[in-house]
């Protein structure tokens, strides 16, 4: 009895050691970036690194708040991501439902088109797309950017949601139809409530993907600027050719802090979503 208890204790300790090791590998670099951002520049470059700065300072953050125009960037980020999430979710639910419930050669081809278009890397289409966006007057506009963001998240979202719809037994809908529910009642009263967790997951995941999107706002806009590209705009030092690490680290933390908070709050939804919608053998 005692022996198995001891064994249990030892495996417990063992599990914690491994878990802490993993946590350390992930968190420590982030901590290092953080202390770099609050160490005064005179103390910053020391060998060995001083992991507890003697005179912590927020001057880098204050500098960035004053000079990088963060407020504008936050507002445009919110606008773009807000609309993108709403529209892309609605559009994707519709498509996913249709792909899951109806079957025809044309629809299958359409589905494959969406799926395979995922394969096309952004860099491949970047320059023609740039010319195209300018031709149709959507370059550097909110509608233009939003369309690009939505287009970016559609394939993955449709794929995941289709898996979810497939998991809803069709008999529920058939029963409702027999009870005299019309199409819209069926969608709103039956399908959507069942899809709620899936929608939450997709929205949360897309939120993070959009927040991190770097290529689209960088290449398809000038006036409109979002948070993720702010790291390319840090002030140059006197020689006009170099960007200082203390500001890079501070900007990095401004960008990743909301992400960390978000992940911590929604851990369960993200996890459940990935688990349920993920690939099934």
């Amino acid at each position, binding site marked *: 009895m005692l022996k198995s208890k001891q064994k249990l204790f030892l495996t417990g300790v063992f599990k914690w050691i*491994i878990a802490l090791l993993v946590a350390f590998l992930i968190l420590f670099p982030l901590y290092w970036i953080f202390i770099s951002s609050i160490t005064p520049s005179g103390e910053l470059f020391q060998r060995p690194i001083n992991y507890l700065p003697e005179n912590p300072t927020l001057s880098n953050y204050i500098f960035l708040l004053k000079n990088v125009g963060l407020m504008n960037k936050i507002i445009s980020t919110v606008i773009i991501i807000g609309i993108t999430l709403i529209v892309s979710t609605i559009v994707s639910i519709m498509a996913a439902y249709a792909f899951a419930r109806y079957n025809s050669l044309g629809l299958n081809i359409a589905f494959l088109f969406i799926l395979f278009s995922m394969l096309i890397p952004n860099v491949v289409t970047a320059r023609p797309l740039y010319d195209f966006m300018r031709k149709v007057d959507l370059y550097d506009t909110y509608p233009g950017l939003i369309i690009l963001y939505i287009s970016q998240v559609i394939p993955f979202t449709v794929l995941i949601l289709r898996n979810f719809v497939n998991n809803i037994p069709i008999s529920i809908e058939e029963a409702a139809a027999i009870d005299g529910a019309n199409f819209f009642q069926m969608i709103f009263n039956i399908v959507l409530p069942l899809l709620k967790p899936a929608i939450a997951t997709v929205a949360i995941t897309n939120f993070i993907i959009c927040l991190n999107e770097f290529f689209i706002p960088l290449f398809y806009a000038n006036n409109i600027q979002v948070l993720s590209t702010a790291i390319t705009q840090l002030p140059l030092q006197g020689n006009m050719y170099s960007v200082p690490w203390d500001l890079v680290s501070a900007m990095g933390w401004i960008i990743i802090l909301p992400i960390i908070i978000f992940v911590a709050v929604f851990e369960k939804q993200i996890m459940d979503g990935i688990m349920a919608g993920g690939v*099934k053998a």
Partner: protein
Amino acid sequence: MKKNKSMLLIAWLLVLPALVIRGFTIIYPIFATFKISFYKVSLLRGINEFVGLQNYLDVFKDPKVLTAIQFTFIFVVVSMLLHIIFGVILALILNMDFKGRRFLRTIVLIPWAMPMVVIGMAAKWGFNNDYGLVNDFIRRFFANFELSWLIHTNTARFAVIAMDVWKDLPFFAILVLAGLQFIPNELYEAARVDGATKVQAFLKITLPLIMKNILILSIPFTMWRLASFDIVYAMTSGGPGSDTELIAYRITTEVFTNLNLGYGATLAVLLFIAMLIFSSLNLYVANKK
């Protein structure tokens, strides 16, 4: 499945917005890229002429591209191997039944949620010999350790791959974990009754069952790797020499910096074809299993 005509019409109406938006941003650029790949376009020299397959032939004589293809190959293969090996291990760790499980799962999501550009810029300093985190850590154990990671071909390549794994491995592991839970517990119990050890149970039950899962997962992860350029963009700019240039980075350089639009498009078409072949192959293998 519902099948009458009016129903099909509804289906198409439901699909239409997604198709239109996707098509709007994809179709023209693809055709334009394909077309321009047969032209020699150098905006800086004001050249724009049809050259047929010349660009395609030039690719295989261009040492920069060959280096990029070589490193892309190494990058994808090594990174994917590490993903699979450590991904399974990490998935098992995340599946452990203990009090810190939630905490661990939360932390593991963080690197996945971070922008690559921030990670890359930090990594450039992180691998610096004098001021970097990596060597500082190693020096706590080996006081005289000196190595500038980013100036030697192999260590620079290793550093790039390491950062890539650091960022994406957790996400891969979570997806593997998703597959793990579909394995019914009875199988393990049966194995235990038969006197199998944990390692035996893992090799005989877990691994075969998640293998197909891993193969399917590997498709998007391989695609992302083939098309990734931001890590190199932020971390090494392709150096030392051009040893850490990925093919997608080469394309951005040709198209956006050197303005050799035709040549860049050719590389883009070739990359696309490679991805198509690869994913079809992968799907085929996965379905056969």
